[in-house]
């Protein structure tokens, strides 16, 4: 099945990026305050070559490709986004993963003077997320640097963000400044704030409802005022590719 991507306008005007405010239009309104040049990413923890990696240096080492992925927000809306980026596995190979590392932790930039939303304690800043190492190494797991062949707009997580298409959107952490390899499950912001609503895994699953709303269906953005809800797919439609990662796990327990 071919996916029809959402428009540039839709993808860049309707965002959750609470560092710029909790409204859907706040990121588009305020993210221009963010300075993304220069940008470096600290890669540390259980890696062979820890250090501060300049974003441009990383880009020159990576092959950028287009990936058209479904994007499913935990709030039960969805889009289809034509990302440009490289596999996270390639970046991790660049730093060299040490034996014994089991998880990857990510951190978003925290710079209050450029991020008006961080003046409020909506979440504990900086925003943090994490993946199990095998999830991080999966070929679908992308580090996005662009949309529609253009550099990532600030409101979408410039200059570099994670995209894990089979998980709820909040796992796909934006504007990354730090990546840490570790042997224990790293803290994740929404999980820390409300653990019964947002699990560490947060795989898209129509059978496991959010305590406050159903996850069985979603509103596809772009259909207009009278758009019909559509059913949510297991692992957001990537079941064939990723179900093996969770074999034998109770997905209602490890939600």
């Amino acid at each position, binding site marked *: 099945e071919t996916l029809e991507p*959402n428009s540039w*306008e*839709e993808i860049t*005007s*309707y965002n959750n990026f*609470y560092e710029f405010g*909790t409204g*859907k*239009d706040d990121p588009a309104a305020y993210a221009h305050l963010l300075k993304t040049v220069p940008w470096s990413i600290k890669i540390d923890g259980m890696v062979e070559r820890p250090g501060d990696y300049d974003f441009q240096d990383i880009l020159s080492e990576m092959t950028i490709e287009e990936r058209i992925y479904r994007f499913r927000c935990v*709030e039960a*809306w969805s889009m289809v986004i034509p990302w440009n980026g490289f596999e996270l596995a390639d970046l991790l190979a660049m730093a060299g993963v040490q034996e014994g590392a089991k998880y990857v932790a990510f951190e978003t930039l925290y710079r209050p003077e450029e991020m008006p939303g961080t003046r*409020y*304690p*909506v*979440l504990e800043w900086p925003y943090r997320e994490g993946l199990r190492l095998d999830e991080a190494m999966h070929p679908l797991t992308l580090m996005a640097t662009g949309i529609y062949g253009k550099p990532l707009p600030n409101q979408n997580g410039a200059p570099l963000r994670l995209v894990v298409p089979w998980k709820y959107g909040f796992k796909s952490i934006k504007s990354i400044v730090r990546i840490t390899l570790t042997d224990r499950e790293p803290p994740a912001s*929404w999980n820390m*704030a*409300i653990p019964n609503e947002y699990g560490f895994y947060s795989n898209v699953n129509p059978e496991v409802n959010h*305590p*406050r*709303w*159903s996850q*069985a*269906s979603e*509103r596809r*953005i*772009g259909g*207009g*005022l*009278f*758009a*019909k*809800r559509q059913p949510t797919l297991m692992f957001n439609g990537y079941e064939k590719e990723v179900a093996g990662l969770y074999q034998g796990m109770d997905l209602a327990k490890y939600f």
Partner: protein
Amino acid sequence: MERVNASLRRIPVWLIYMTGALPPPVWLWMGATGLLGVDPAKAIEHRLGELALQALILGLAVTPMRRLLGVNLIKFRRAIGVLAFYYVSCHLLIWLVLDVQIPAQIWADILKRPYITIGMAGFALLLPLALTSNNWSVRRLGPAWRQLHRLVYAAVLLGAVHFLMLVKGFQIEPLVYLGLVVILLALRLPVARRRLAL
């Protein structure tokens, strides 16, 4: 204050009904023509919910404003209340028809999701008030009418709690609304009325 009240007196109540009736159809039109962004159903739903809460709070403020500030809005209180009910009804309709859409899921949401349950309870409490917002009912019910209409206190509180429960993370806005409601309700307590000579 006399001047303010004199100007207020010149505003006909029908004008309040006419202008107050506009937001839902205007927003529906804006949503249908793409003026409310890429997720128009949610935008209209949220705007209507917030407007309903604002109207309910304004309704609660009428008496304290008269007693504490001398501003007399009593002439418009019924219109404010009826409009608040109209906004709540539109908010509910948008949620049913454009947001959730699926009847089985609507029923499950009402029973299983506390913030929906609370919102629905608030709507249910407003229903008899809207039905008795006419002179005939006031005459017919006598002193019971006043007692019945105290249900609005609970309804507003439920509305504010409904808002607080549906946001993600720690957010200021719903807390401001809840704070206003709590203050306006506290002013009704006998102890506050004695202290402030209300």
